[in-house]
């Protein structure tokens, strides 16, 4: 295979996404939030009225743009596959708590990187947490954790997710009165619609081509010392760091960072929960959006789980804010660890040997069928 070219592709993808993130912030997006899949899904749920935080409501065009970009790229390369049936409800729950963790930290792995590149040291604490969560998840993967096989579905499954993204874009442009648009707070800060849409489409194409995934990068490095996905990671970080230094946006420290809190323990645990859940889901929220756009309906259910998690987090005071992490948020993270731990146990070969079945498989997890 053309692996050398692939390496160039992912470095290019990372650099372009980094520049795009800088442009988005320059043109109106919140600081250190050129892209944030978790934050944008949260704003999107707000825009649809699924959560009523009046500072967090906007249909972020980056999300439908990303989906449409990835969908078009998969059509062009014929990599689309209508797949589904790998424990969708479990994926929904995993995604729900993954989002809980990310909103206690205040960002997905992509924004974590952008925050680090802005000098926010709290995000570095988050990175340690993310790595710890991924390591914990891999321990279960090695014990044979599996959510079972997906099967090929009717082709019509392919179009639902991109069609929903297109519908969201149409509705955003039509601006019906029943959508919510924040007048103040983070969601009131946004680049012009077409800039955000174009940025999303571009990022979607690049992410589809390069398979960019932050959780996958850490995972592959731990499993087989592979750096491929981490090149994308590094390219985004270095590009945005350079951009922030040039534009004078770089400010190193723990306190006074934009849309961030400095409660180290919960920054760590929030991202650890996100990493733990994401490993079982097979990737970070960005990767889930791309995979859903390629026709994977399990990833589409995952995105719905992420959105539901965001809506609950803001309806029930779970999400953190610049002021800190509320008691409800801390409790939700602990509950999330307990739930994901239980799911992990129940879907491992060890549990399957004792008679628990998953996904119609009787021979156990993926690992056992080859041993």
């Amino acid at each position, binding site marked *: 295979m053309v692996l050398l070219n692939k390496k160039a592709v992912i470095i290019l993808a990372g650099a372009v996404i980094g520049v795009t993130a800088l442009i988005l912030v320059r043109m109106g997006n919140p600081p250190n939030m050129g892209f944030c899949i978790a934050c944008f899904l949260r704003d999107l749920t707000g825009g649809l009225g699924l959560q009523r935080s009046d500072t967090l409501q906007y249909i972020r065009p980056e999300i439908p743009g990303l989906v449409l970009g990835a969908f078009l790229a998969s059509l062009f390369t014929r*990599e689309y*596959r209508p797949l589904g049936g790998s424990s969708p409800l479990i994926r929904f729950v995993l995604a729900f708590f993954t989002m809980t963790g990310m909103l206690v930290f205040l960002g997905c792995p992509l924004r974590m990187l952008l925050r680090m590149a802005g000098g926010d040291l709290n995000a570095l604490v988050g990175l340690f947490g993310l790595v710890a969560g991924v390591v914990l998840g891999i321990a279960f993967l090695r014990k044979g954790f599996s959510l079972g096989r997906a099967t090929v579905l009717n082709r019509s499954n392919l179009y639902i997710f991109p069609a929903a993204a297109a519908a969201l874009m149409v509705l955003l442009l039509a601006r019906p009165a029943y959508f919510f648009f924040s007048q103040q707070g983070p969601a009131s800060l946004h680049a012009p619609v077409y800039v955000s849409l174009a940025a999303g489409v571009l990022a979607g194409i690049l992410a589809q081509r390069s398979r960019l995934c932050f959780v996958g990068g850490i995972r592959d490095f731990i499993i*087989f010392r592979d750096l491929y996905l981490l090149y994308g990671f590094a390219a985004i970080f270095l590009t945005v760091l350079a951009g922030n230094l040039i534009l004078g946006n770089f400010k190193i420290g723990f306190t006074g960072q934009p849309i961030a809190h400095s409660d180290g323990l919960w920054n760590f645990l929030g991202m650890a929960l996100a990493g733990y859940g994401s490993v079982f889901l097979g990737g970070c929220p960005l990767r889930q959006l791309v995979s859903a756009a390629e026709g994977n309906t399990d990833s589409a259910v995952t995105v719905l789980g992420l959105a539901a998690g965001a809506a609950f987090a803001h309806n029930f005071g779970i999400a953190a804010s610049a002021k800190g992490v509320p008691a409800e948020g801390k409790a939700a993270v602990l509950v999330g660890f307990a739930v994901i731990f239980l799911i992990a146990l129940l879907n491992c070969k060890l549990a399957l040997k004792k008679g628990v079945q998953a996904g119609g498989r009787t021979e156990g997890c993926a690992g056992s069928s080859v041993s």
Partner: protein
Amino acid sequence: MAEPKDARGLLCPEPLLIAKKEMERLVRGTFQVLVDTAAAMENISRLAGSLKWEVSVEQQGDEFLLTLKR
């Protein structure tokens, strides 16, 4: 040759772990893995490269049959 390892329908990193396990079991030899996404095909190819296994990919309709040799 033995039946190919079936990694179809599995999301990352499961196809990768299946291939890795087989490489560790065989140490030397030849085996095949069947996957149905380009991402899994690329992942296993990278794994093979890093563990010094030769890999060839044959596209069969929507699926990829990888042959790994060492």
